[in-house]
């Protein structure tokens, strides 16, 4: 079978036509890399055998086509086999973050319980440690690894009959990465995912000798599609590691690229700063990154200075400017919406920042203009995806006018799972909530329409964090505000919280700050970067009596600067 490209698209019916399942030979499908452990090489034959064995175990549990299966596991090979095994029996898998040492188990379980109830989850698959507790908290069976392994046939299930889905059936769900509470399940059909991979592979000029290296979590669209499904479907080796491992030891990524001659790696913007600032020199001595075709910046606003920092630090390892590419992507379009051409420097647009903010126009400016702002292009839309810029009233705007980015494609979601009340489309277009403009056909993203914060690639809803802070003893209920602060050093938006309290007592202040930070850490996947306590009446309200995030952000920034 040829690789999946637009020209060969009709040869593929469903995701089960994946090269890693269909061409069961000795070529590497997945190379799993861990700190201080030898690499684990999974050949395509191994992959196919393991997926079938896990599928047989799921069948034994009574899992049927269209059942929703949540894989809330640590990132490991088992979670991968379970995801594909579920698809093999026709079930709908969805990857979920597992409980970590910092999260409050009660909150995690409450959220999972809601998901189980509202989405009709058939079973949750998780670690042995966590299965009994979670099982007692949710209204569906929860299976740990040992239990499942006990049901796995000892040998390959060569005669396993996979479910034969129709192309338009839902293949899996992607739960958008919110901070707390219930997330919408983005339902993607086999057809949509294959369309995306065909178009995106053309945009990348993907080749059989590419090697994808990824530390990204599989519950996030970038990790799930670019760093997991695409390589397995295309038969391109996937060098994978755990995000927890990478975040503490960022050099692991470079060691993996060097050892396996990696060519493609997707990273959110903060990762460029994290690597440049926190990889220790002795950890990368003698490594070469010259095999790379592209580091693709994706999933949060791209900063030119982050690219420059990365380039300056790793040029001696063979990184060059032409390797720094950009993509704009979202789960609702399966993944990529745009991609800059590989092997070329990304186009930069210098505009008048004041005109951009106030007149909402991207007016070209010279580099020495007093308000010059460097915008980094996200590239052209990938084939079969259209991008337009819409005004508030939904009418389309011309080039260089700022508005909401809207998209239309053949790889969009089927809908939000079991949420018929939510129609993702308006006249066939998906309104992304991202603000931006188009110049010479290339898409430039400015930020979000609402107050959403994008912190290290994660979507953070300020109202979720404010609700948590409002429950902390000592904070005036309803008198807390949360906003994002762009940070050059970290290459992402940091999260700041300001809360009104009654007391001036330093010991009491410390207790409240600790309680706020602890509450947010244990109930969400993020950490507050700034916590500032203020006296009564500090917070600015709008004329309608609501606390204004923008005005308070401005006030806080001014007080800090002064």
């Amino acid at each position: 079978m040829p690789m999946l490209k637009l020209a060969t698209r009709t040869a593929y019916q469903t995701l089960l036509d994946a090269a890693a399942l269909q061409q069961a030979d000795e070529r590497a499908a997945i190379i799993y890399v861990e700190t201080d452990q030898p690499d684990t090489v999974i050949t395509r034959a191994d992959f196919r055998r393991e997926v079938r064995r896990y599928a047989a175990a799921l069948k034994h549990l009574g899992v049927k086509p269209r059942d929703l299966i949540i894989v809330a596991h640590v990132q490991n090979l088992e979670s991968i086999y379970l995801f594909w095994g579920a698809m093999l029996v026709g079930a709908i898998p969805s990857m979920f973050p597992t409980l970590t040492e910092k999260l409050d188990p009660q909150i995690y379980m409450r959220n999972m319980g809601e998901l189980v109830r509202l989405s009709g989850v058939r079973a949750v698959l998780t670690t042995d440690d966590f299965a009994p507790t979670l099982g007692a908290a949710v209204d569906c069976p929860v299976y740990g690894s040992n239990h499942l392994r006990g049901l796995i046939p000892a040998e390959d299930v060569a005669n396993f009959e996979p479910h034969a889905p129709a192309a338009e059936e839902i293949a899996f769900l992607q739960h958008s990465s919110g901070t707390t509470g219930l997330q919408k399940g983005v339902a993607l059909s086999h057809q949509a995912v294959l369309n995306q991979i065909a178009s995106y592979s053309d945009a990348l000029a993907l080749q059989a000798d590419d090697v994808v290296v990824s530390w990204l979590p599989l519950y996030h669209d970038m990790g799930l599609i670019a760093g997991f499904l695409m390589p397995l479907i295309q038969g391109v080796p996937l060098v994978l590691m755990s995000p927890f491992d990478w975040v503490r030891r960022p050099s692991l990524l470079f060691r993996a690229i060097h050892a396996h001659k990696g060519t493609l790696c997707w990273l959110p913007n903060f990762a460029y700063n994290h690597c440049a600032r926190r990889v220790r020199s002795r950890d990368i001595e003698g490594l070469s990154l010259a095999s790379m075709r592209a580091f693709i910046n994706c999933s949060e606003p791209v900063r030119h200075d982050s690219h420059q920092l990365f380039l300056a630090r790793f040029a001696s390892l063979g990184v060059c400017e032409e390797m720094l590419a950009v993509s704009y992507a979202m789960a609702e379009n399966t993944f990529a919406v745009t991609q800059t051409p590989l092997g070329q420097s990304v186009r930069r647009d210098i505009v008048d920042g004041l005109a951009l903010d106030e007149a909402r126009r991207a007016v070209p400016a010279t580099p020495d203009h007093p308000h010059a702002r460097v915008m980094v292009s996200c590239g052209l839309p990938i084939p079969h995806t259209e991008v337009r810029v819409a005004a508030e009233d939904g009418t389309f705007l011309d080039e260089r006018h700022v508005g909401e980015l809207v998209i239309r494609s053949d790889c969009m979601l089927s809908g939000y799972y079991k949420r018929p009340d939510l129609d993702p489309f308006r006249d066939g277009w998906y309104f992304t909530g991202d603000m931006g403009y188009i110049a010479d056909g290339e898409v430039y993203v400015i930020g979000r329409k609402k107050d959403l914060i994008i912190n290290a690639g994660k979507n953070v809803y300020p109202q979720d964090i404010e609700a948590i802070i409002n429950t902390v003893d000592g904070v005036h209920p309803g008198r807390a505000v949360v906003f994002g602060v762009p940070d050059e050093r970290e290459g992402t938006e940091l999260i700041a919280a300001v809360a009104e309290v009654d007391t001036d007592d330093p010991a009491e202040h410390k207790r409240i700050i600790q309680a706020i930070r602890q509450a947010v850490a244990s109930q969400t996947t993020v950490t507050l970067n700034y916590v500032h306590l203020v006296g009564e009446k500090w917070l600015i309200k709008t004329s309608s009596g609501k606390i204004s995030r923008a005005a308070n952000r401005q006030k806080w920034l001014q007080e800090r600067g002064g």
Partner: protein
Amino acid sequence: MDETTVREKMREFIKRELIRDESYDLTDDEGIITGGLMDSFALAELAVFVEEAFGVYIPDPDLTVAKMDTLNQMVARVMRDLQ
């Protein structure tokens, strides 16, 4: 360098760079990561700082939340290898 100097240098660095609040009264035994004062990215940053400030290289397997959650733990790890 004696333990007190190491401790105070680390305390100052953590407050200034990682907690971003120099007025915060960071005690020796409070959980810095589990307490939500900094995230696990900060462990990598701490490793860079420790190498630059004290010439101590903390190997990857020691950079975990379990081993590096409090100032006491961090200082003990640095002192072990400090010449």
